[in-house]
């Protein structure tokens, strides 16, 4: 059986600060197939992840550099970014 490539996770702004890393590679079980499921799975990884991905705070997501929704599919090899609502300009 071939190895599934990991998912690359990027964190920005206060999410990055709370998780404590700007980037990590994870290999969740295959049932974790959407953005929403991935966030729920990441929340269990460590207390820092739980604190960063706390329910009630608005978190935005991009999959492969496009804005994504909770039901957007994710799979091994994807680049998934998690961040607060943007505040540029």
């Amino acid at each position, binding site marked *: 059986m071939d190895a599934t490539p990991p998912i690359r996770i990027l964190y920005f702004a206060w999410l990055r600060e709370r998780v404590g890393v700007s980037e990590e590679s994870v290999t969740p079980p295959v049932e974790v197939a959407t953005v929403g499921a991935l966030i729920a799975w990441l929340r269990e990884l460590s207390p820092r992840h739980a604190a960063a991905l706390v329910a009630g705070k608005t978190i935005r997501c991009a999959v492969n550099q496009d804005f994504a929704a909770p039901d957007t599919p994710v799979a091994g090899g994807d680049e998934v970014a998690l961040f*607060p609502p943007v505040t540029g*300009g």
Partner: protein
Amino acid sequence: MAGVRVQRADFDIGAETAALTAGRADIGAIGSFLGTVRDIAGGRKITAMTLEHYPGMTERAMGRIAAEAEARWPLLGCTLIHRVGRLLPGENIVLVLAASPHRHAALEATGFLIDWLKTAAPFWKKETFVDGSEDWVEAREADGAAAARWGALPPG
């Protein structure tokens, strides 16, 4: 046709305008918006503003916003420059230029570009206050509403 840049360095509105219009006599109208760091945020004095972005996605998002403006208005070029890193009060943050034969096209495109740049490009601002404390700026409801006035961006 659009020039899109994310950079630490400052920019100059005069030089950017000259670059956009150089050698052209078909333009007629250039609208622009220049955003600068205010020294007050939510009633508190700030000493610095730090801008973070998502390299790669930012440039893609800015390119899409510029392309959408060029699809909606008869533009002869536009420029989007956004700074990142630590900026001081009074410093430049963002510049939008939109060139057209027609003034309303130039000004409306300018408004569209800055409204969408605020809501659809991955930048985040952190403010540093006089006591040294820092806070991430919260997204404003009004910014989402301002961008929504223009209707949705097509999926990217």
